[in-house]
C-alpha cells in the first residue's frame, strides 16, 4: 500500500490527466448523448441496436440523474460554479448532487475545505443558494 499515490477523489487525488481534463456534469452529458443519438436516428432506422450497451446505459443514467433539463440552465450552472475557485471535478460533483446545506456540500466534496483554500462557509452557502435558484426557475 502506498498511500501517497493512491487515488482518492475526496482529496482530489485523481491523477493529473483527469485533473486537467474537462469534467462533465450529468446534465451536460445528457445533452451530448442525446444529440448523438438523434444523429444516429437519421442515418438508420434502428439506432438502439447500433449503440453499445455502455452508451445505452450511460444515456439512461444521465437522463435519470440530471438535475437540470434545460440547456440554458445547464449553462448557467456551469457559469455560476466557475466563479468560485473550484476544480472541474469538484464543480461537477456539486452540480450533480446539488447539496442543500453547507454541511452536505462539505461532505460531498471534502476537498473544498482542505488547507489553503479560500472557501468559507458563507461563500459555499451563497453558491448553493444560487444553484437552487436556477433549479427553481428552470
Amino acid at each position, binding site marked *: *500500500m*502506498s498511500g501517497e499515490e493512491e487515488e482518492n477523489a475526496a482529496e482530489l487525488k485523481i491523477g493529473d490527466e483527469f485533473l486537467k481534463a474537462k469534467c462533465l456534469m450529468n446534465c451536460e452529458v445528457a445533452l451530448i448523448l442525446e444529440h448523438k443519438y438523434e444523429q444516429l436516428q437519421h*442515418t*438508420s432506422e434502428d439506432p438502439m*441496436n*447500433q449503440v*453499445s450497451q455502455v452508451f445505452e446505459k450511460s444515456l439512461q443514467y444521465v437522463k435519470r440523474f440530471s438535475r437540470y433539463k434545460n440547456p440554458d440552465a445547464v449553462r448557467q450552472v456551469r457559469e455560476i460554479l466557475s466563479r468560485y475557485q473550484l476544480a472541474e471535478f469538484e464543480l461537477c460533483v456539486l452540480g450533480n448532487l446539488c447539496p442543500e446545506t453547507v454541511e452536505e456540500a462539505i461532505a460531498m466534496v471534502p476537498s473544498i475545505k482542505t488547507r489553503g483554500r479560500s472557501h468559507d462557509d458563507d461563500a459555499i452557502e451563497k453558491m448553493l443558494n444560487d444553484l437552487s435558484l436556477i433549479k427553481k426557475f428552470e
Partner: protein
Amino acid sequence: MRNRGMDPDEDEYEEYEDDEAEVDEEEEDRGASSRKRRRSGFIDDDAEEVDEDEEEEEDEEDDFDDRGGRKRQYKRMAASNFFDEEAQVDSDEEEEEEEAEDDFIVDEGADLPEEDGGRRMHSRRMLPHDQEDHEDLEAMARSIQERYGRRATDYDEEATDVEQQALLPSVRDPKLWMVKCAIGREREAAVCLMQKYIDKGSELQIRSAIALDHLKNFIYVEADKEAHVREACKGLRNIYAQKITLVPIREMTDVLSVESKAIDLSRDTWVRMKIGTYKGDLAKVVDVDNVRQRVTVKLIPRIDLQALANKLEGREVVKKKAFVPPPRFMNVDEARELHIRVEHRRDPMTGERFETIGGMMFKDGFLYKTVSIKSISAQNIKPTFDELEKFRKPGENGDGDVASLSTLFANRKKGHFMKGDAVIVIKGDLKNLKGWVEKVDEDNVHIRPEIKDLPKTLAVNERELCKYFEPGNHVKVVSGTQEGATGMVVKVEQHVLIILSDTTKEHMRVFADDVVESSEVTIGVTRIGDYELHDLVLLDNLSFGVIIRVESEAFQVLKGVPDRPEVALVKLREIKCKIEKKISVQDRFKNTVSTKDVVRIVEGPCKGKQGPVEHIYRGVLFIYDRHHLEHAGFICSKAQSCVVVGGSRTNGDRNGDGYSRFPSLRTPPRIPQSPRRFSRGGGPPMDSGGRHRGGRGHDGLAGQTVKIRQGPYKGYRGRVIELKGTSVRVELESQMKVVTVDRNHISDNVAVTPYRDSSRYGMGSETPMHPSRTPLHPYMTPMRDPGATPIHDGMRTPMRDRAWNPYTPMSPPRDNWEDGNPGSWGTSPQYQPGSPPSRPYEAPTPGAGWANTPGGNYSEAGTPRENSAYANAPSPYLPSTPGGQPMTPNSASYLPGTPGGQPMTPGTGGLDLMSPVIGGDSEGPWFMPDILVNVRRAGEDSVVGVIREVLPDGSCRVVLGTSGSGDTITALPSEMEAVVPRKSDKIKIMGGTLRGATGKLIGVDGTDGIVKVDDTLDVKILDLVILAKLAQS
C-alpha cells in the same frame, strides 16, 4: 563358611563367580546391604528361588518366624561370608538386632545351606574377608573411596568423544532391565519405584527406573541383578515382575536416546482431536495432567439427544452407522424436555459447576472431556475462522476475539511481513501507529512510520505488528482455507478482514496475516475433470444445464428450465457428458439463432435482457448477460421468447451492426469474415470492442487456417472449425474431411482477417485478394446458382468466364489460401463454398475430373468453381497451367497433394459467400408461394400481392394486399415482379440451389443481397433478382 561353600555345589560356585564379582562392587558402592540385597544376590534364574524369595519376604515381614529366622540366620551367615566388610558394617546395624539370636544358631545354620542348595551357589568365594575383618574396614573403605572417587573425577573431565565412548555402559555398569507393567501406567510405575526408594532407602537395590512415553506396557529398571529388580518390584500392583528382560549393552543407549517431541501443552491452547466422534474437531485445553498424560478439553458437543434419551431410558437404540451428529451447543433445557436426567455436579478439582448428562460433563453448552494426550494433536493447529467463531459463545465479544486470536498469533508462522506491506502496531507504546515495512530482520521488522516526526525507521518486534488494510484495497489470500481467492476489502475488524470475492461476489472473512495486497484477479477454479466453467452438460436424469460455478468438488449448474431459474448442485459423477452439439433454433420471428448470436429476451422474467447465446439445446437458449447478476450472468430462456438482435454478434458492445452504420463500408468486407467464423450468421469477427468472448476456445483460432505440425496429420493444412477443449477440429485442405487434432499440434499460419487492427503481416499477401473480391461480387451474380449442375458438366462457361476474370488474380495468391479468408477467397473461387466436407472429391485425376465428382457436391454452389479449376483451364487459378494441371498447383497448395479435388477444403468455409458463383442460373427467378410481388396488369398500376399458389403453367394465384388479405387473382409471370426486398426483410430464395429456402436479408451490396439462410444458417450472397420478400403472414 567356606566349608559350606565347598559343598556339593561347588561347581555352582564357579559359575557364579562373575556374579559375585559384580555383586561385590555393588556392595561396595552402596555400602549398604540389606537383607534383600543379599537375597537377591543369591537368587538368579531359578524360579524356585524366586518363590522362596517371595515367601521369605513375606516371612520376613511376619517377623521371627522360625523358618524365617532360620533363613535369616542363614542369610546373614551366608552374607557375611561373601560380603565385604563395609557391607557388613552397614548392615550391622540391621543385623545387630538379630545377632544375638543368630550367634548361637550359627552352628545350626551350617545345615541349612544343604537344604537350600541352590542358594549356596551364590556364596561368594571371592570375598576373602571374613566377617572378622572389621579392622580392615576403614582401610577398605578408604581404598574403595579412592577407587570410586577417581572415577568420579574422571567423569568430570569428560569432554571428548573418546571419553564419551568411555561412558557407554560396559559389563561392569548396572544393567538395564525391561520390566512389564500395566498398560498406561508406566509413569506411575516409575514414580512408585521412586517413592519406594524414598521410603525404603538403601534397601532398594535398583539404580533407576525409566518410563518412556512412547513405549507402552514396559518400564526400564537399572540394576545390577535381576533379583534386585524383582525385589524392588515386589508389592507393586502396576508392575508385573514376572517378565523381566535384560537389555543388551549395545542397545542400552538406544533406550534413552529416543527423540520425542516435547509437546508443551498448557491451558487455553488450541488442539484438535485425533480419534473418536470428535475427530478433527477443534478443542481448547482446560487442564493438563502430565502424570497421567491426560488433558481435559472443551469441545462443541456432537450429541444426538434423541439417541441419548433412548439409551438412558433403556430403549433400544438403533445405532446409525457412521452417523456423526453435527456440532451444536448443548442446551440443557432441550435435554430436560427429552426427559434426560441432568445433574449438577461440582468438579472437585476446579470447583466449577457442571451439568452432567449421561456421564458427560457440560458447561455453558460446551462438553468437557478428559482424554489422553495421545489422542489430541497440538502441533500446527490453525483454527479456521469459522471454528473460532463457533467457539466464541454469544456472550463473548471483541475481547474474546482478541484473546483467542492472540493465542493464535503466538502460533503464527513467522516471517510473513514483506517490504512494502502496510502494517499497524498492535501492542506496546506505539500502538496504532501505521507504517510501511522497510526491512525484515530475524525478530524485528523495520517500519517507516506514517507520522513524519518520527525517525525514518523504527524497529518493532514482529509480534507487535499486524498487517493493515483499508477498505477498497484489492488483496489476495495467500494462506488458510481461502487460499488463492482474490477480492476487495470491504471492512476491517482488527485482525480480521472482510473481503468481497472477485469470483463469487460473496464475503469472506480472513485474517489480515493471510492476505497480501495484489491487483491480481483470480477466476478461481474453472474446471474439474473434463468439465469447465460455462460448459453445457447433460445430467444424469436427462436434464441439462450450464455450469455457472465450479466449487471444490461440485458444480453449480443452471438448469435448462426456461420459466424460472433453477440451480442445482451436482457432483462430477452426476454429469453424464458435455453437450457440444451445434444446433440452431428459430427465434420468435423465425430468425435462425445460433450460438454467439446476440438475442434479446422479449418475454418472461428476464424480459429486456440481451446478450450473446452461449448454448442452445432442445429449444432452450442460454444467454450470457454480464449485467445480469445472478447465476454468473447466465439466463435460460426459450428460443421462442427471444429475438435475434442485429442478426449477428455485432450488436451490444460492438456498437451495433458495424456494417449498417458505415454505409461507406461495403458489405462485402463482411463476407470474408463470415467464412472465418464459418458459423451461422457469422458476424464480423471483429473483437475490437473488447467484447466478452463468451466461452473459451473462441480466441480467434476458429476459422483460422493452420498447419498441423505433429501427429498423424503432420504437414496438412486446414482450417479450424471448432475448438473442443484441448483438441481442435480441423478441416483438411487436401482431404475432404475434418479431423481432430491436439491443439498443440497445430500452428497458426499467419492467418488473419484483413480487418483486424492487430496488423498481421500475413495480410499482405491477401491484399490482392480483397480487391479481387469486390469485383467478384458483381461477377458473382451470375454465378449465384450453387446448384449449377451444369457447371459440373465441364465447366460451364460462366465459370470459365469468370475464371478468366479478375478472379484470376486469385490464382497467384494460391499461397494465401490458408491465410484466413482472404486466402480462402483466392481459392474459393475454386472451391466454392459448398460445405467443403461434403465434397466427395475423389481426387479426380487432373484434368479428368472436370465434370466429375465436383459436380456432385456442388449443391453448395461453389463447387462449380472447382470444376472449373479442373476443367479448362480455368486455370484462372493457374494462369500457368492451362487446363489440366490446374489441380496440381492447387494440389500443391493443398498438399498432401491429392491432385485435383480436394482443394476445396480450404477456405471453403468461407466460400459460402462465394456461392454467389452461381452456375447456370439461366432460368431466372421462379415464383413461389408466400412471396410478395408487384402485379402489373396491363394498363393498371402495380399492386402488391402475395403469391399463394404457383400453377403448373407458371402463372400464379396472387392474393392482393401486403399481407395477402385482398382479392385473389391469377397473374402471369410476365405480369409479376418480385418485390425487391430491403435490408432486414425476410426473404425467400427463388432461384439457384437454395431455391425455396427462406432467410433474412442482412445486407445489400449493389445488385447482390447478403442473405442469412434460415435452415443452414449460412450467409450467402445472392443476386437480388432471385430474392423475394417474404410475406408476413
